[in-house]
């Protein structure tokens, strides 16, 4: 299963009902009207600065874009919309941008009484715990060298739920027991942010520091001036992102805007998940040196020495490990001093070399070398040779255009053919999405 298949991006600029259609399709029919209603309202709220309110915008006749096919059925139209949505994601810029990959994230969970509100099913609290778990799993999948810590806001205090850890199991364990997290009292934004900031103070300069706040309350009780905390976050270059469950708060908005984070108000369960999952891909780093000129050196960048170990199987001869002094057969050998360590990634206790397993590093390379977007083939020109079947999966292409309406503007091919600009092989829609979302390697050119 590709990781983000269910995570359809909500295009903030579109006012058509395309997103709503397929999203409310999965959700109960009952909530449909309401969801659209609230979405409209909140969209105006969230983007009030640059865009008129939704009710001031010109009305989009979204039903006109859906057409029946010859048989009078809507299935082809719906399939087309889905394919278009997938395709739109692929059209995002594919040039290599610099991203910070060694990430450190503190998730601040609101554990105040307002989280017991039932406007999201079953409660805001249960839902955010569930989504936090999914978020953590997916986050570690895409940011294998990252670390996550958890802080709770409960009864006016910041509460450390788990230390910074690179092991997803440790983090998940901290929020696995619901009864320990029972919401109480008022939240204190300042206390929690200060606690998160304190635990990120020692981090090396080349890693990113991020805070994600899931905030359900509309109030915060703070011991001091929260704007001082904000200043401190800016100074420490901590990126704060907030997903609010209730409504927009000025101070939250300020935190996000001034620290370069993202702010979003969740309108319903699906949107909440979307907002969270948008924060998973590594953020593009604000390039400091480029603005300052070619001569400047980015202070955040550094060259690190890393060793790639050899893993011993559990059938090898037992030997003492250097980390716990225990007799073990399995383990990893430091490539520089041949000391045996139990787990990677770690620093070798003997020679101090940072030992990582190279697959850990390689997991993030697809961000660096994305596959070029395939070009949609609009029509079959005469004279040029066209393959009968998809180059990757050998599915045969339709001979005639199947789409009921032309969608060339959004990069859809009416023939279901997409061509790699490098190797000029044709691929079908499924392979196009699969190659760009999952494999990250073109089957034709092998790069």
């Amino acid at each position: 299963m590709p990781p983000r298949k269910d995570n359809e991006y909500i295009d903030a600029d579109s006012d058509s009902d395309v997103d709503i259609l397929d999203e409310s399709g999965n959700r109960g029919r009952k909530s449909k009207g309401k969801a659209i209603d609230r979405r409209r309202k909140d969209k105006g709220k969230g983007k009030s600065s640059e865009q008129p309110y939704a009710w001031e915008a010109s009305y989009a006749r979204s039903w006109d874009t859906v057409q029946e096919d010859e048989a009078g059925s809507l299935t082809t139209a719906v399939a087309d919309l889905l394919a278009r949505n997938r395709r739109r994601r692929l059209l995002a810029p594919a040039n290599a941008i610099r991203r910070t990959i060694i990430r450190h994230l503190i998730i601040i969970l609101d554990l105040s009484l307002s989280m017991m509100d039932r406007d999201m099913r079953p409660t805001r609290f249960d839902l955010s715990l569930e989504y936090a778990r999914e978020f953590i799993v997916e986050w570690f999948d895409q940011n294998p060298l990252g670390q996550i810590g958890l802080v709770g806001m409960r009864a006016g205090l910041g509460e450390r739920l788990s230390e910074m850890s690179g092991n997803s199991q440790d983090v998940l364990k901290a929020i696995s027991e619901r009864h320990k997290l029972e919401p109480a009292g008022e939240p204190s934004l300042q206390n929690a942010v200060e606690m998160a900031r304190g635990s990120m103070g020692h981090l090396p300069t080349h890693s990113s520091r991020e805070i994600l706040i899931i905030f359900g309350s509309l109030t915060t009780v703070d011991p001091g001036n929260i704007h001082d905390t904000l200043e401190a976050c800016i100074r420490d270059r901590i990126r704060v992102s907030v997903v609010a469950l209730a409504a927009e708060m000025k101070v939250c908005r300020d935190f996000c805007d001034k620290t370069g984070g993202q702010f979003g108000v969740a309108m319903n369960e699906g949107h909440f998940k979307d907002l969270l999952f948008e924060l998973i891909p590594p953020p593009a780093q604000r390039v400091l040196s480029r603005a300052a000129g070619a001569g400047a050196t980015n202070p955040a960048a550094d060259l690190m020495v890393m060793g790639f170990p050899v893993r011993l199987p559990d059938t090898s001869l037992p030997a003492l490990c250097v980390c716990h002094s225990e007799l073990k057969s399995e383990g990893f050998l430091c490539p520089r001093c041949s000391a045996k360590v139990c787990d990677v990634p770690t620093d070798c206790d003997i020679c101090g070399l940072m030992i990582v397993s190279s697959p850990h590093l390689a997991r993030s390379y697809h961000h660096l070398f994305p596959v070029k977007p395939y070009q949609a083939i609009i029509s079959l020109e005469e004279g040029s040779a066209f393959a009968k079947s998809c180059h990757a999966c050998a599915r045969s292409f339709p001979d005639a255009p199947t789409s009921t309406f032309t969608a060339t503007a959004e990069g859809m091919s009416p023939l279901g053919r997409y061509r790699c600009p490098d190797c000029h092989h044709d691929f079908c829609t499924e392979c196009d999405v699969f190659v760009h979302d999952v494999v990250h390697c073109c089957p034709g050119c092998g790069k």
Partner: protein
Amino acid sequence: MDKSSHISVVLDLSPSQWHLSSLPHNPYPLSFKSFLSQVLAFLNLHIASKHENTLAVFGAFPGKSVMLYSSSNPASDSSDSGNPNIYRPFEIVDSRVVTRIEEELELIDDKEEEAPIGLVGALTKALCYINRITHPTTSTQSTIVEDPAILPDPRILILSVSPDLSTSYIPIMNSIFSAQKLKVIIDVCKVYGPNTVFLEQAAHLTGGSYVYLERRDALLQHLVMSHLPSPALRKLMAVPTQEKIDFRAACFCHKNIIDVGFVCSVCLSIFCAPVPVCSTCRTKFPIKTLQRLNASRAPALRPVNGAAKTSAPSTPSLPSTPR
């Protein structure tokens, strides 16, 4: 009971490696002909062991990769003059694979023979094909409604003879991760040549088995014993496991396979020597770090250091640094 399974077999068909393999000075020379006949026997076994079992065969040729056979696209039934003494499905597989290999080898001219082997292409095609059969989508207007419960357990078997191609490090790693996501096991049988670091990692990370063939005359036996049983069955069997797994990586600058590397903290690119500028993300590294790193590795690795210095200007990053 046990589900039907799907195997995508990736054959490494490098003419030069097969020539070397058949030379008589090898301890156990294995010619391509006998290899192919043993592999065909294995493919037939797979089809015969369960009626629903499916099969796809991909060939990695120098510079290209081709799907040789797939059970969902049965070949055009032109060769109707079937031998009545052979089970028909076997015959179709055998003749199809053999004729396709012949056709493709005919197309290769002498120049292309030295091109790097298209293993990555074959591997990604196998993944795309598996993605297609495991996620039957609605948008294909085919009427085959497949029940997800009967969808086969997919796995990939790579029969490799070529050495590691270090330029394909990143694509191979990407394929491994997508195989993990699709829950596809990658089995590797190393028929000829030295152990390949990348395929070892592929087998290890996807939970498959990596078999290095020492007695190459016993290829069929190895295939049957360790690669025919489905992954569910393997838990009950003593399938050979890997001894050591080498987690080495290829550096981005010279494509060397290294065990200690220098890593850019911004994009995690790996270099075999300290470089002033990251060639991937154009990050400039502090001079102090460079000096420290150079000093620390100078006494032990003097010759390597010198070589790195002379070759440094050839890295693609440097000419564009003045920007």
